[in-house]
């Protein structure tokens, strides 16, 4: 009996450690993009199936861990566009121990909303938007980021 309790306690803690990302709609994403914040926002669009996205994730994780108070990292997964089951994303986040905020965008009919996120975006992944709400500056990068590029673009916005 004791062993069972211990086992379930262990299960609970492991589940507790991995964050369950919230599923959001386009209007939630737009609220984040337009949020009146002092912070520089970095919003990355990715998916678990996207090789270049997975490769650049550690750059966002490092930035988030080094988190100066003036930076907000948000990782928006588009996995649901192809597969309605979020379980694969939950497992990926737990396995990779992702600490940055992850959101799952659940929207049908991509042609109706891609331009609303950014007109420069052709819909391919990865894609990253840098926003400085204080100055109104905004930058869109529609390809994989290399080491040092995140810092460079943030620097350019300050």
């Amino acid at each position, binding site marked *: 009996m004791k062993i069972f309790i211990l086992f379930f306690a262990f299960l609970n803690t492991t589940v507790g450690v991995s964050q369950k990302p919230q599923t959001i709609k386009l209007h939630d994403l737009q609220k984040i993009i337009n949020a009146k914040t002092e912070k520089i926002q970095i919003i990355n669009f990715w998916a678990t199936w996207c090789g270049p996205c997975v490769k650049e994730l550690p750059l966002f994780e490092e930035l988030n861990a080094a988190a100066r108070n003036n930076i907000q990292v948000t990782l928006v997964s588009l996995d649901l*566009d*192809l597969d309605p089951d979020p379980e694969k994303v939950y497992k990926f986040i737990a396995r990779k121990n992702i600490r940055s905020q992850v959101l799952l965008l659940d929207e049908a009919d991509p042609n109706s909303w891609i331009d609303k996120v950014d007109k420069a975006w052709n*819909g391919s992944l990865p894609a990253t938007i840098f926003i400085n709400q204080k100055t109104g500056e905004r930058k869109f990068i529609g390809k994989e980021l290399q080491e040092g590029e995140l810092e460079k673009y943030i620097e350019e916005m300050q």
Partner: protein
Amino acid sequence: MKPYVTLSMALFLIIMLGTSSYNVDYGVGDIVSDFTLKNVDGKMVALSDYDDGIGVIIIFDCNTCPYSKAYNDRIIALNKKYATVGFPVVTVNSNNAENSRGDSFDEMVALAKRKNYDFPYLVDDTQRVARLFGATNTPHAFVLKRNGKTFEVAYIGAIDNNSRNGSLADKKYVEEAVNALLAGQPVPTPKTKAVGCGIQWKNS
């Protein structure tokens, strides 16, 4: 002042001409340059080979992208539906096979064989054709309408608006475009965007 203005304009034009020969990035209504690429059967296929039909559905596709896998049967069905009425499918793989081993020529041959492709699956190993078209995703469709010996871009974008399940798509963009062209009507939605894998470029 004036000589400087003309000089800078001339420089600008030289730069524009220099880049345009490589990166045309077609828009709807543009005339497409001819191209020739190797097919999975080893034979060369040119766009100008299709000089007796109504048009061609060019699809930039690949072996490895999950969106390409999700759309594979829909691409095969498009050719079955439209090749006989003069609007065949031609698929092009532009992915850099050095980074994406699953997109090697041998793997392309294997996929075409496994899925009984009855349309070309061309290898764009220099990526010149993808750059010429301004293709970005896989699958990325370009519906071309033939006018005499030239081909004009009539539609650019997604195959339909439901990647998960084609039978649930309520907008079948490529079919709508081809049906309109077959009926001599304007294409209802000439350009769309879709979530997808980016083409894997060399040196990027």
